[in-house]
């Protein structure tokens, strides 16, 4: 099943550590050098799907108390999500390899 870019980006943002909604948006922007700026609605619709499919779960653990905002909910990548994300990453890697073999990439 092809993974939607939005979902892949969210999974990437959550791969390192658990984050709350706005932090995901910031991380996605940082990962893509600001090229992709998700809007909150898009993010939460995707989260809604991914929560339902068990790719992402709500996290009970919180970071240090002084940076925490009590209201916020944090999201963590679930094993299923991790599998989906790595499958997508491998798919992309294969494509990159093909692209490189065909001299589509300027640097090695």
């Amino acid at each position, binding site marked *: 099943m092809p993974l939607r870019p939005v979902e892949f980006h969210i999974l990437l943002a959550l791969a390192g550590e658990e984050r709350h909604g*706005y932090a995901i948006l910031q991380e996605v922007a940082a990962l893509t050098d600001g090229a992709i700026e998700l*809007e*909150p609605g898009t993010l939460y619709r995707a989260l809604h799907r991914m929560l339902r499919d068990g790719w992402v779960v709500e996290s009970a653990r919180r970071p240090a108390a002084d940076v925490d905002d009590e209201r916020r909910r944090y999201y963590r990548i679930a094993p299923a999500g991790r599998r989906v994300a790595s499958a997508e990453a491998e798919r992309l890697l294969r494509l990159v390899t093909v692209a490189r073999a065909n001299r589509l990439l300027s640097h090695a």
Partner: protein
Amino acid sequence: MPDLSHRSGDAAKADGRRLAWWLVCAYPPRFRRDLGLSLVDTLDDRMRARRAAGASAVRVAMAATLDTLRNAPAEWIREVRFTPDGTYERARRRSMLDKLRQDLRYALRLWARRPAVVLVAILTLALGIGANTAMFSIVNAVLLRPLPYADADRLLAVWGRTPTTPRSLISYDEYTAIRDQRDVFEAAALWLGQSVNLTGVKEPQRLLGNFVSGSFFQVLQLKAERGRLFDESETVPGAAKTVAVLSHAFWQRQFNSDADIIGKAVTLNGAPLTVVGVLQMPYDPEHSGVDAWISYDVFIPLGLFPTPPGVPRATLNASPSMVGLARLARGSQVAAANAALDVISRRIGASSPPGAQHGRTTFTLLAHDDLVGEARTPLLLLLASVGCVLLIACLNISNLLLARAVDRQREIALRAALGASRAAVVRQLALEALLLAAVATTAGLVIGRWTLRALVSMKPASVSMPDAIPLDGHVLLFALAVAAFCAIVSGLAPALRALRSDLVGGLQGGRRTTGGGSRVRDGFVVAQIALCLGLTTVSALLTQSLLAQQRVSVGFDVHNVFTLQFRLPATKYRRPEDIARFFEQAITRVRAVPGVESAALARRIPMSGNWGETPFVPEGQIVAKGSEPRAGQNYITPDYFTSMRIPLARGRDFTDRDSLTAPPVVVINETLARTIWPGADPIGKRITVPDFHDPATVIGVVGDVKHRTPTEPAQSQLYLSHYQTPAIFTSLVARTGVPPLGLTRDIRQAIWAVDRDQPMWSIASLEAIVEGAHGSARFLATLLAIFAGVALLLAAVGIYGVMSYAVTERTHEIGIRMALGASALHVRREIVWRGLKMTAIAVAIGIPAAIGLARFARGTLYAVSPADPATLGGSATLLALVALAASYVPARRASRVDPVVALAEE
């Protein structure tokens, strides 16, 4: 837009959070419950971050709103598409809105299960609604909408009538008498549109001129946009001022909206006229089908109308030469106006020389009726046929829904047994029906707009219709209401019956007890076929009539003839000799054009709209003045018969020697020869016509020609030599060896070589002119054929639907019978037989209906009887074939029923 940047930071923050709350409310409740708070936080975070980065409050709010607009509806759609989990249903106390939403979801899920049925239902309704709305919009625009003038319901057309001509022009004397009847006519006017030549400009042009009395502007309540309009005293024949009023469009086109136009001179028909004003357009010409009265380039006092030289003013004023227009006095009636006109006619008749106005009267009718005139019957016919299509569509939809509702009786009984209130069941079914109607109306709107555009672009020039007709909102609503009514009634009726009867019966009954509804459905199918028969019959009759019209021999050869019209300025060509000289030179030049085989001038080209008749007295007969026989009249130069290929039966054609100085001669047609000298040789006999003092000698007899319409009966026709009766208006006909319009430039140059100031217009091939005469008939026949086709399609769907349902309903029974040894052929035959039986009943009902509809169309039929047995038989056979095909498919399915499967089903 309030600028939030000056407000305190806290207030702005609170605003941002409130907006986020509102935005999140747009998401479905389940989504809100799961993630709403987090989304509010994140929206808020994002807005705050953007504000901090220096974006304006408005821009930030806009971005958040756009995001919501994009995502919330998508979430709703997803919500509807997927079945919600049970916990959610139970946990929440449901509001009315939630219930409706649930019903909607249920309906959509049912649709998704049987997409074919729903698609057919929607298409059926959409076709009915769309076609109906488009057609009614046209009828409304042409027949029902009032004329775009103030108090247009008091505008009257005034016409003359003689025993031989049902509608003729009126004279200036009649006009003045009408004008003075102040108690019934608030105001009266005269007008006559005629082309005028504009010279003194770069390229001479033919303008559309309207010669009007000063009261014309008053009757129509027109105003000047610039300068002034002329008044009655400036237009009196014999004392008219040389003034002109320009139309807005012409002022724009020719003078670039010159602000200083007032007081300038324009040369019209060779005479300089002073522009006194520019007329203000009282309506948008694009959206109005009216092309009478004011869609002209220039308005000129009627006293300046070109008149034949040497005729005394009193004679001119007494001769009917213009069109009457009047405004009914407030509170008066058309009947009162007609009574007043009778009195006037009698008084004028008594005071004029005996016989001069033999049997002549004047009459009036509402201008709107007058303008709509002949379009009425065809349009009403179309409206009736579209009504039929809508009715068929509604019957179809009813059948479809009835079948489904009966199908669902058990389900409904089950729901009721499980505790659903009656209201809940009704609401569910009504919502489903409304949803269907809504989707169908949307599709119908698209179809309607498309149809309307197609119809308007198809219409021939001879049908007066606005170029831009908006789709009529009222009609759309009406069609929607009808469709929704059908859908609700047929969806609900069986359901209500199921609720009324005891639940146990409903639950136990299963399929076999539901036969009652099938009689209603059969009845609907019969009605559909009957209506369809009516439509196909009328459509077939109109097509036959059109073909018959096109088969009629017009009496001349339409191929490869070039025609154009021109009017010489009377000021430049004062004497008949001048005109005759121009004629000769022009023809000589045109004949010399390579590709032209022969050329002639004729005042009236057949089917071009130019037509005239003349009284005549055969030598030796004594006829009271005013009651002479009349014949169609034409003025032609030599070679006209050759150019038109009108056969010369006896005698000779005109020659160049039949000139002003030669004794007068005429050529008559065979009908005229037969009428006045049956069995005798007319050559050498003499006829008196008003054009000559002395009786004219008959020199030739030619074949009959259809002059006004291809379908007119044979008329007496009389030709005079154009050289003996030169007139400033005439037309050129040239037979060519090449496609005629290819010679346009050369032929125009040839005439400009004689007079380089001479405008020419109506350049057309004779073929196109005659073709144009068929335009309306073809338009009508095409439209009806389309509607008949749609009706046939819908009826076929209807028959198929009912048969198919009947087969499904009886699968069990068929299974038993086949298990007991009935053959597949037998089963098949029985089903098809049922379809044919319905068709037979429908034909028996439909034939009288078809004859009735065709009688209504009688006026538009040519050479076909409304009760033409062949046509009726053909339509009935066609429908029987359609019914056969539509029932054969389900019948085949029935005959393939596997008894084991069918019996195991329940």
